[in-house]
């Protein structure tokens, strides 16, 4: 098969699954699930086949969609290394998670709908990844947002889930508006939206500097929204209202990585734009530390992982912002594996024990789930950046990229964030796996409601992803070759502090949470003010509420004045004027017949005088 056919198969097979599950097989949930998993298998096969055959294939397949004033807008597939890599990751993780969902979602009344929406997401995401045109990419970018909205709100009968879905949709939309304006500016400056063409140095050189910076910043708005960076990050933790496999697929491994992927896709543009990389670095470092500190004090396992996703996405942007395409994409790849793994482990505990609370999990014997616990430890070690697991290598390359060219503040910030990462990750591990009798943490208010045992279909993806999380770190040189960027090999001098810092985080977590008879109280609780600040997520939700609420009431009161004064006034004026005119003209109807005749005659005379010319 030609690569065009393969790309079409890869992107559109899930759409068939989606249609089948949502329209045809609503009453046959098992068939719907089977259809979607088959479709995902076909997608993964096609993605791998594209990769295998990429040496003798044209990298872009384009067909004209429409042409307006000499500007062609085409749809097509861009099959270069970055896209191939991302396509394989998305298809693989999506497949794993769909298989996992077979067990996790068992007995849910919306089983068929769930798999249909997964198909919708996979279609949108894969089409986005392989897009050859920025407008096409934007269309699918929005469809990814839609799929995310539907999946977060999957249990829409829960008001909190419905609210979270709305919040995610609106917050990402704020970023998307910026991105769309950037897209229009880009189109007006270069008369093309073809990604391959846009990334050529000559095209980028033809845009004036100031405008290029503006475009880069606007595109970065989209990245900030989609990848949940400060200040638009608050939607992601709330998105944990969706089913856990959804969180694993969308809100950690693939969909939120779409923002980072877009940045990687437009890396030449961001590098060419003056001063943008510093803004990116500042936002990324703020996000990384902010999210990590919040994760330190959460008790809900999914929320810890959500904040860790935000923090890790910020790490990817740190790597990309430091100018290394390799570091960002590499961390994106490894993160997809270990974060999906961690979420699936969390899902397994939630399924078995029936609570999101880590303390409850520990006390109910989460450690008895051997395979899941092994996965959790390996995933956590990978996230913390312990050698030789996946996260270690990618985080090292990010730190190396930061060392290379940038101010020390960023490097120290990144060190702080990786210390916090190791700390909160192992806090989670110890809370779940080593419950302490002397723990001062109070029990949860609700009784846990177990859903059932962890099935084989849930264990298999965990096993696969465990292997991935352990081994993906060795793929660095391969990834560098695939995306055509220079691999970064940090020196031992650079590695040592990073390893030391990660180990320090683990050790502090061990003393506070993992030791026998540990009090399970973090050092941060000694500083009450900070503890509350982190607990309340820096009060950002409250601030946004106040600002947005205040803005809305301001607009509303202005509108009210305008309506009462201007709009109602105009209406009243028209009415009153009509009545007054009527009154005035009614006086002329005197009822004196002879007056009428007289004025008629007078008029005729005057008329004749003028018309007749006398």
């Amino acid at each position, binding site marked *: 098969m030609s690569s065009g056919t393969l790309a079409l198969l890869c992107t559109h097979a899930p759409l068939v699954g989606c249609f089948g599950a949502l329209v045809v097989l609503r009453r046959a949930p098992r068939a719907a699930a089977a259809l979607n998993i088959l479709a995902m298998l076909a997608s993964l096969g096609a993605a791998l086949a594209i990769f295998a055959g990429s040496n003798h294939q044209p990298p872009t397949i384009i067909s004209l969609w429409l042409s307006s004033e000499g500007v062609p807008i085409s749809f097509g597939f861009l099959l270069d290394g970055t896209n191939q890599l991302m396509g394989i990751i998305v298809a693989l993780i999506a497949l794993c998670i769909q298989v996992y969902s077979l067990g996790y979602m068992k007995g849910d009344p919306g089983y068929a709908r769930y798999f249909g929406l997964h198909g919708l997401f996979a279609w949108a995401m894969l089409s986005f990844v392989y897009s050859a045109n920025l407008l096409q990419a934007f269309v699918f970018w929005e469809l990814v947002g839609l799929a995310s909205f539907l999946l977060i709100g999957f249990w829409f009968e829960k008001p909190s889930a419905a609210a979270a879905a709305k919040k995610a949709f609106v917050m990402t939309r704020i970023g998307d508006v910026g991105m769309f304006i950037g897209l229009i500016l880009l189109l007006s400056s270069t008369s093309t939206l073809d990604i391959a063409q846009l990334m050529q140095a000559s095209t980028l050189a033809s845009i004036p500097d100031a405008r290029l910076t503006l475009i880069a910043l606007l595109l970065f708005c989209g990245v900030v929204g989609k990848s949940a960076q400060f200040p638009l990050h608050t939607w992601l933790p709330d998105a944990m209202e969706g089913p856990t496999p959804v969180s694993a697929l969308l809100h950690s491994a693939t969909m939120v990585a779409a923002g980072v992927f877009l940045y990687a896709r437009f890396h030449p543009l961001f590098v060419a734009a003056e001063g943008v990389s510093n803004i990116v670095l500042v936002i990324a470092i703020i996000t990384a530390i902010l999210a990590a500190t919040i994760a330190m004090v959460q008790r809900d396992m999914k929320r810890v992982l959500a904040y860790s996703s935000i923090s890790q996405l910020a790490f990817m942007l740190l790597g990309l912002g430091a100018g290394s395409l390799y570091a960002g994409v590499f961390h994106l790849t490894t993160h997809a594996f270990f974060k999906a793994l961690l979420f699936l482990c969390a899902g397994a505990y939630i399924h078995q024990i029936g609570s999101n609370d880590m303390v409850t999990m520990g006390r109910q014997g989460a450690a008895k789930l051997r395979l899941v616990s092994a996965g959790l430890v390996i995933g956590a070690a990978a996230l913390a950046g312990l050698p030789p697991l996946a996260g270690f290598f990618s985080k090292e390359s990010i730190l190396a990229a930061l060392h290379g060219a940038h101010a020390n503040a960023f490097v120290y910030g990144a060190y702080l964030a990786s210390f916090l990462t190791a700390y909160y990750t192992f806090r989670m591990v110890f809370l779940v796996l080593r419950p302490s009798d002397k723990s001062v943490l109070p029990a949860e208010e609700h009784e846990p409601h177990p859903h059932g045992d962890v099935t084989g279909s849930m264990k298999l993806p965990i096993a696969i992803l465990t292997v991935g999380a352990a081994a993906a770190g060795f793929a660095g040189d391969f990834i560098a070759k695939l995306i055509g960027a220079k691999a970064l090999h940090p020196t031992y001098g650079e590695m040592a502090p990073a390893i030391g810092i990660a180990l320090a985080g683990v050790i502090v977590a061990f003393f506070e949470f993992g030791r026998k008879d540990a009090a399970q109280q973090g050092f941060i609780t000694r500083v009450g003010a900070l503890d509350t600040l982190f607990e309340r997520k820096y009060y950002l939700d409250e601030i946004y509420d106040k600002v947005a609420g205040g803005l809305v009431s301001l607009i509303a009161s202005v509108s009210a004045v305008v309506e009462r004064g201007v709009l109602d006034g105009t209406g009243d004026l028209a009415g009153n004027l009509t009545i007054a005119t009527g009154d005035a003209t*009614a*006086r002329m*109807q005197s009822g*004196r*017949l*002879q007056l009428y*005749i007289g004025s008629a005659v007078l008029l005729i005379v005057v008329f004749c005088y003028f018309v007749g010319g006398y």
Partner: protein
Amino acid sequence: MTLSHFLLVALALFALGLYSVLTRRHLIGLLIGVELMLNAASINFLAFDRFVVKDPATGQIIVLFIIGLAAAEAAIALSIILSAYRAHRSADVDDLDELKN
């Protein structure tokens, strides 16, 4: 006897008719005034027919029409006046002002 003599007579007649239409209070008076104005118009037609137009038939035909019309108009107007009088017990135009304002 030239054209202008006839026209002057017709003018005087028309002016008298108009005057009575504008000043009479009684409906019958108004009707008489209208009749006078119609006759003034007839005289005009006949005068122009006699002095200006070469073919004398046209004006005479029109005048015959006017006479027929006047007769019909008088019949209708009288019946209207009669019913107005029955309704209002009066034939004064100033009393018939129900539609004013």
